[in-house]
């Protein structure tokens, strides 16, 4: 039965099964903090080594087919695409997340496929065994390492209104009606639309409402009128785009009186990433956070400057 399956399909099936098995092994057996709190990071190995290995496995099945570079690149992309679809179906990953991860996955599957092509053309068993051993060691070391990454994103705008006027809209603001300019928001990523607060005092509860109805629960931890509003995120929505990928920890608005009738408004956010490598995902996290800031801050600017 299995011999009647075309090498290409065998390559797709086996590489995805291997990827699934290794991901499960990493997530449920090796991840050091899995049993502690369930917040297992998705590590470098799962986004780099596994796709690379998937490419090598695909090439192994195609080693006698003399596939051209065009076909091999296409097959590698298809293999990555299958992995993405399987992640959507079985791992419950969000579509935006999968759009973000796709270029990384495709690149490493292509890289693996061409590395595999070169390996199997040379057919040096010592070299091949060394490459697999190196990948295995990298995987084990990475899986057993502590993964912790937090970052802060800061953005600043100048508002043509005094701090007291700006402050009115910093704590809470009415619904944003203008369309978003950021491409991820335009294709469906939830964007902030409104903020509400129980009151204007230290300890008050605040809510940040997103376009899809999701709500971030917040608590004001610093309340210096016309100067500093800092709030901790006490509960974030269980959205597949966010869950297990990023925790927003704290937000802050700082107002600086420029003594010329204008105010410099600074928005700060602190977050923790659960997806690695950071050099890839932090670019996206910073970009999304920055655009959340700018959407809110430009709305505040518009409200404060409207007489």
């Amino acid at each position, binding site marked *: 039965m299995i011999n009647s399956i075309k090498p290409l399909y065998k390559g797709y099936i086996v590489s995805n099964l291997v990827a699934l098995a290794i991901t499960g092994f990493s997530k449920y057996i090796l991840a050091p903090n899995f049993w502690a709190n369930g917040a297992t990071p998705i590590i470098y190995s799962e986004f780099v080594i596994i796709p690379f290995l998937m490419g090598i496995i695909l090439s192994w099945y195609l080693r006698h087919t003399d596939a051209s*570079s065009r076909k091999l690149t296409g097959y590698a992309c298809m293999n990555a695409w299958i992995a993405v679809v399987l992640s959507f179906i079985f791992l419950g990953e969000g579509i935006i997340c999968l759009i973000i991860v796709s270029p990384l996955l495709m*690149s490493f599957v*292509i890289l693996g496929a061409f590395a595999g092509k070169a390996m199997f053309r040379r057919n040096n068993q010592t070299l091949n065994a060394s490459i697999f051993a190196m990948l295995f060691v990298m995987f084990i070391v990475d899986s057993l390492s502590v993964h912790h990454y937090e970052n802060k994103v800061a953005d600043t705008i100048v508002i043509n209104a005094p701090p007291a006027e700006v402050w009115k809209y910093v704590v809470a603001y009415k619904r944003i009606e203008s369309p978003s300019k950021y491409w991820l928001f335009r294709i469906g990523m939830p964007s902030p639309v409104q903020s509400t607060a129980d009151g204007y005092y230290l300890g008050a509860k605040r809510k940040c409402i997103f376009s899809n109805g999701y709500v971030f629960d917040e608590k004001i931890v610093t309340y210096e009128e016309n100067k500093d509003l800092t709030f901790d995120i006490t509960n974030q929505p269980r959205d597949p785009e966010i869950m297990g990928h990023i925790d927003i920890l704290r937000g802050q608005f700082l107002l600086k009186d420029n003594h010329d009738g204008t105010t410099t408004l600074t928005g700060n956010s602190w977050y923790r990433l659960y997806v690695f490598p950071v050099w890839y995902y932090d670019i996206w996290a910073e970009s999304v956070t920055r655009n959340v800031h700018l959407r809110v801050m430009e709305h505040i600017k518009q409200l404060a400057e409207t007489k």
Partner: protein
Amino acid sequence: MFVFIIRYFGFLKFVPGLALLFDAQLKLWTLIANPNLLDWIDDIEKEVLTWPGTTVTNHKYGGLQFNYHGKELGHIHSNGLLDMLLSRKIKQQLMQQDRRVQDHHSFKNSGWISVYLKYHDDKHLAIELFEHACKLHADKALNN
């Protein structure tokens, strides 16, 4: 875009594997933008490998490297950029003969040339250049 990345982020090529990853992304882009180019690179590889003493390896900064008795003749990045080391004199001659032969995209004052493979005919130019480079290497080996 390629020139921009090479100019401003070229220093990152020294990070192990990063240039290879970048080349994989170029393959993906080429598959979308000009898929025939991947076939032409294959055709060049097949032709050059029929010549005695030639081999291909992965280039350390991404792409396919062509060698003659272990020495590099030139390499083709996956966006179709062919880089080849000749002498400055031959470079000048080739640049005068064919406008497709250009100064190397990074090393202007050297014997390196660059050719952007865009059309089917560029494949033949690339093969001619590799043939030329092969002869130069063979003559050099004979003289030594």
